[in-house]
């Protein structure tokens, strides 16, 4: 077959938006000699059609008739040839190319078959470039080594995509005779990430069986026992020493996070810590489920692809919960290094934080938006310790039939793989994500990066919803980390399964049986189907061009049998696979760090400090990110992430209306304060819970229906001190959940977020616990937002302000950490939350905003500029602890459990009645003059600033 090459350029006079953005990025790198960048799309199509048809295809399908033009073959370099550099970026062979798939289908719609389609991007850089600069531009801007090849110049053709067919060869990895040293060498050499005790357990097992394992057996065990899948650290037994006092846990998770859920025993919790997502009741007929995952390591290597498949993967969790939910909202929380780092401050093997941030945001945007799921809530946190290990938390909420919250796979059911094809992408993702990163990861683990195609997932979702409604399957789960191995192994753990691996549809030839089994290729799900339903379910799938394949069946002998072309390549005992992982016991230590409070003199005026905090990366407006996400698709948006008079104030939480014909809403929030963990991880975790609760209360959600999720991202927990911090945080999760009567319903951990630099240093992330919350809103018409509403309304603060500047943004801008991290009064905090929630429910509140990062001063400023109004406040009205006498601590202390509430004067009495016996006080009122004026107890104006200017300072950092 002939290979046709088409290059599509913008016509003169029509803006080349992509080329322009590349030029901006080149300038940002400090290269000034490039005058212009022209970008082109390249299509390589193998087909037997005539020249006339080829030109028609290019004209009608590939080229926009108005603003583009095409070349059939290679375009000549433009005028000024000598100074033009041509760079082409091709996907590495085996990497999913969604555009190519669509072009194949479209060519078929035109009545012709194409053999193979590939796409590439071409850049023409005009201007004089030194040789090194071309490489820098290619590497830093145009291409990602992990997934793409760069070809400079006009001559070379990309490598042929054709791969050799696979010939079966059963491989054994003998373990029975190995020494401990050799066992570890095997584990390391095969990237199994199994430790010595685990390898010895496997050795003993095969000793009993009297045979050696095959490669696919060891790979299955490694995946099933990986930290990512089984959470062995959090489930280990722990001997803990806190400031010299001893404590013991038989199973850390069971005795902290789970325990609270169990003791609270809420009837509205339907399925917790059991399925792919936690399930709670929504209304009489429906339930909602919520899961938050991390995709940290892949996002460090390939920010765009890593984040996209992070969101793509977590969407499949609700889709694979119970009998399947329909995704209704996404959340995303990121931690990055500060985006203004100089290039030489970034360790070798690490991408620049700004590139990571742009790539991650674009990845979540393109996947979430294409799936048609609104991204409604999130946060971004900056700390240089995240530079080499960015954290990418992706969450998804699904709506499901309350009668279909549980699966029921039976022996004799067929194992059907639905959705995308299997390729080499994402091999060893589960094990890779469980280990530490090094500066060499970029090259060694590039195969662990997965490439997503959201439209494949959307198509799959569309048909699965129909199959679920028709009751045509018995169980469903996603192929997440560990691929088919994990999906089939998990679904069949109480049954047994046999799988014929050659049946799995492949993206390209050449995959071994082991690669097929453990590939983490995206957009695949597994359903268990009764043989009599196969025809009907296949008709639904076929009807919308979704591939489905029977790859095996569930049995009843609790064995997992893997075959290839009829020959057995692996047999595993389900009990050993799932319950054989040795139990760990770990040591944990926590000692109160020796820290002190800085002594900062009292100033007459704190305008500068307020501006500095508002324009710090953590506090600054994230509008640049939020607007790139479709937060309104599905039509259920009630409280949007941006709110206020100019649609740009920072909402505390999101509210959506999951069913368009019902006024019941769902509120979604989060809380996270990594810096407090440097002082006290217990306080950090409680602050996260309190913040998530505050945020969700502020928009009008119920306090008696709050469900929480925990996501621990930590460093290397084999170090007792690192693990000690985690144990402290887990203890706080128990205490916080009990106090607020808010059970945890799901959680996940990602450990070993550390980076080994070339020079031998190790960078660990700060201990980071994300708390996500959902709750019900009885009537969406009663929701409130955080923007000040009307001049002359009164402003109250509920909750006590304390001398708690430790870990605050005020200290941060002054270069201090401090010692007094904010605590939570576990008796008082839930009462405050309940009273504020009730006041909102009774219609007494015009706006409500929590005091968090930046304290009272930032909270007031945000309410003022979001409302386009002014605020006059007087610190004499501030309920405070006796030792909170400094003006700076009154303004900037980040004490928990505080709400700023706007009330109409005529509703004062009713509001005050509800706040009886709580610390609350009137601190001011809303004005018309557009200024924020805060007076100290002695009457001095310690802040007097124009809110428009404050808003500008808050918006400037990400005005990208």
């Amino acid at each position, binding site marked *: 077959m002939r290979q046709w090459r088409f290059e599509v350029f913008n016509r003169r006079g029509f803006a080349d938006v992509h080329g322009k953005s590349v030029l901006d990025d080149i300038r940002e790198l400090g290269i000034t000699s490039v005058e212009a960048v022209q970008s082109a799309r390249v299509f390589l199509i193998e087909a037997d059609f005539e020249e006339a048809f080829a030109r028609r295809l290019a004209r009608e399908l590939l080229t926009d008739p108005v603003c583009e033009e095409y070349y059939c073959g290679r375009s000549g370099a433009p005028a000024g040839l000598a100074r033009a550099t041509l760079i082409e970026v091709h996907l590495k062979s085996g990497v999913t190319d969604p555009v190519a798939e669509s072009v194949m289908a479209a060519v078929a719609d035109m009545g012709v078959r194409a053999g193979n389609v590939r796409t590439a991007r071409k850049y023409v850089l005009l201007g004089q470039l030194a040789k090194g600069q071309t490489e820098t531009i290619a590497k830093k801007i145009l291409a990602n080594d992990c997934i793409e090849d760069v070809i400079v110049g006009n001559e070379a053709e990309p490598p042929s995509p054709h791969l050799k067919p696979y010939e079966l060869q059963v491989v054994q990895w003998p373990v029975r005779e190995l020494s401990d040293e050799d066992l570890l060498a095997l584990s390391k050499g095969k990237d199994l990430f199994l430790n010595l005790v685990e390898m010895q357990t496997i050795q003993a097992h095969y000793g009993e069986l009297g045979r050696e394992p095959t490669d696919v057996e060891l790979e299955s065990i490694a995946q099933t026992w990986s930290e990512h899948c089984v959470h062995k650290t959090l489930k280990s037994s722990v001997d803990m020493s806190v400031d010299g006092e001893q404590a013991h846990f038989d199973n850390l998770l069971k005795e902290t996070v789970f325990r609270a859920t169990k003791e609270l025993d809420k009837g509205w919790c339907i399925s917790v810590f059991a399925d792919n997502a936690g399930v709670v009741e929504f209304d009489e007929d429906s339930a909602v489920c919520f899961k938050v995952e991390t995709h940290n390591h892949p996002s460090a290597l390939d920010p765009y692809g890593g984040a996209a498949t992070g969101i793509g993967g977590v969407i499949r969790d609700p889709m694979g919960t119970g009998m399947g939910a329909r995704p209704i909202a996404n959340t995303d929380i990121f931690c990055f290094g500060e985006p203004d780092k100089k290039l030489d401050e970034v360790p070798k093997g690490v991408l620049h934080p700004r590139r990571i941030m742009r790539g991650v945001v674009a990845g979540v945007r393109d996947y979430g938006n294409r799936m048609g799921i609104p991204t409604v809530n999130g946060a971004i946190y900056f700390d240089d310790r995240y530079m080499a290990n960015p954290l990418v938390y992706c969450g998804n909420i699904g709506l499901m039939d309350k009668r279909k919250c549980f699966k029921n796979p039976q022996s004799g059911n067929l194992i059907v793989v639905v959705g995308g094809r299997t390729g080499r992408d994402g091999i060893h993702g589960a094990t890779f994500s469980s280990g530490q990163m090094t500066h060499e990861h970029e090259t060694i683990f590039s195969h662990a990066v997965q490439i997503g195609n959201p*439209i494949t997932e959307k198509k799959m979702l569309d048909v699965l919803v129909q199959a679920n409604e028709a009751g045509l399957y018995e169980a469903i789960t996603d192929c997440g980390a560990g691929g088919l191995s994990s999906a089939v192994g998990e679904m069949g753990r109480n049954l047994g399964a046999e799988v014929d691996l050659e049946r799995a549809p492949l993206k390209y030839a050449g995959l071994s049986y082991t690669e097929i089994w453990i590939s983490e290729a995206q957009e695949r799900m597994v359903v268990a189907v009764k043989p009599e339903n196969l025809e009907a379910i296949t008709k639904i799938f076929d009807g919308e061009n979704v591939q489905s394949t029977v790859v095996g069946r569930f049995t009843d002998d609790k064995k997992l049998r893997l075959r290839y072309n009829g020959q057995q390549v692996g047999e595993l005992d389900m009990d050993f696979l799932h319950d054989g992982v040795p139990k760990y016991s770990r040591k944990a230590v926590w000692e109160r760090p020796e820290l002190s409070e800085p002594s900062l003199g009292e100033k007459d005026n704190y305008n500068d400090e307020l501006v500095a905090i508002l324009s710090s990366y953590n506090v600054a407006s994230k509008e640049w990110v939020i607007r790139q996400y479709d937060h309104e698709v599905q039509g259920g948006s009630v409280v949007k992430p941006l709110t206020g008079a100019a649609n740009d104030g920072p909402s505390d939480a999101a509210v959506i209306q999951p069913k368009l014909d019902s006024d019941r809403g769902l509120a979604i929030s989060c809380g996270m304060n990594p810096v407090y963990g440097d002082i006290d991880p217990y306080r950090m975790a409680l602050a996260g819970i309190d913040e998530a609760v505050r945020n969700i209360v502020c928009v009008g959600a119920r306090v008696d229906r709050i469900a929480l999720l925990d996501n621990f991202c930590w460093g290397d927990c084999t170090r007792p001190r690192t693990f000690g911090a985690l144990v402290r945080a887990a203890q706080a999760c128990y205490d916080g959940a009990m106090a607020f009567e808010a059970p945890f319903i799901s959680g996940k951990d990602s450990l070993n977020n550390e980076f080994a630099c070339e020079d031998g240093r190790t960078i660990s992330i700060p201990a980071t616990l994300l708390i996500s919350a959902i709750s019900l809103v009885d009537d969406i018409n009663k929701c409130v937002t955080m923007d000040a509403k009307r001049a002359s309304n009164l402003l109250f603060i509920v909750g006590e302000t304390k001398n708690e500047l430790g870990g605050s943004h005020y200290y941060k801008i002054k270069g201090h950490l401090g010692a007094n991290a904010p605590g939570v009064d576990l008796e008082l905090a839930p009462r405050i939350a309940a009273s504020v929630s009730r006041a909102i429910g009774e219609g007494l509140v015009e706006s409500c905003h929590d005091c968090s990062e930046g304290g009272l001063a930032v909270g007031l400023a945000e309410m003022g500029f979001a409302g386009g109004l002014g605020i006059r406040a007087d610190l004499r009205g501030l309920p405070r602890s006796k030792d909170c006498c400094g003006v700076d601590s009154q303004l900037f202390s980040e004490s928990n459990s505080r709400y700023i509430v706007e009330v109409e004067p005529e509703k004062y009495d009713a509001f005050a009645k509800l706040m009886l016996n709580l610390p609350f006080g009137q601190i001011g009122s809303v004005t018309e003059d557009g200024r924020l004026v805060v007076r100290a107890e002695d009457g001095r104006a310690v802040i007097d600033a124009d809110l428009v200017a404050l808003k500008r300072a808050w918006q400037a950092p990400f005005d990208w």
Partner: protein
Amino acid sequence: MAEVRAIVMRAAGINCDMETEYALELAGAKAERVHINRVIESKELLDQYQIMVFPGGFSYGDDVAAGKILANQVVHHLSEPVAKFIGDGKLVLGICNGFQVLVKAGVLPGGDSAMRQEQVTITNNDSGKFEDRWVYLSPQTDRCVFIEAGRRIYLPVAHAEGKVVTKDSGVLETLRSEGRIAFKYVDEDGREGDYPVNPNGSVDSIAGLTDATGRVLGLMPHPERFVRRTQHPRWSRMQDGRGGDGMTIFNNAVRYARENV
């Protein structure tokens, strides 16, 4: 009262079909979401409907260009049935991706004879990125049955490729003189302006187009996302509850279909 039936076309990557169906039902139509494969299999399916809607989404991932692959399907499998649908006096609405499909299939702005005109296209936003924001729209014609002349409406846009461009100024002049510009982006006071008033850089601030019959409308903003007061971004600041501006388009369509089709 005669029943008005609306078909909401699904395809791979279409994702605003459910809320569009809901909006049509609120307007009194009986709406159904149907996969385009079913229509291609049996084109007479379309005979049951008076309103055809191509909703928003990312059909086929917007691969090659937004709406292009689905437009290619329409051109190669449905060009006659769609032309007949319009010829029978029925209504066609394209929202966001649906608008892109109608333009790239040549249904809009529609010439006098052929489906394929290639005079107008929709391309990348000047900002180079996807954006979700609210815009004011000013109607430009009184001969499009979906539009309430003179009523400025407020709707969200959410797209990366929404910039309407014409092949040359002559085409733009024709669009103007023939009344094919349905909506323009304006500010709160009705004035045209730069970004973000015009969120994507469309020539002449064009937000939507209609054809010669006035029974085909395509627009980038999403009327189905403002059918209830709590969808307004500032509803919590409003004393009175003004309903959803987007409903005017669906109400007008259903009323016209009931009375005329």
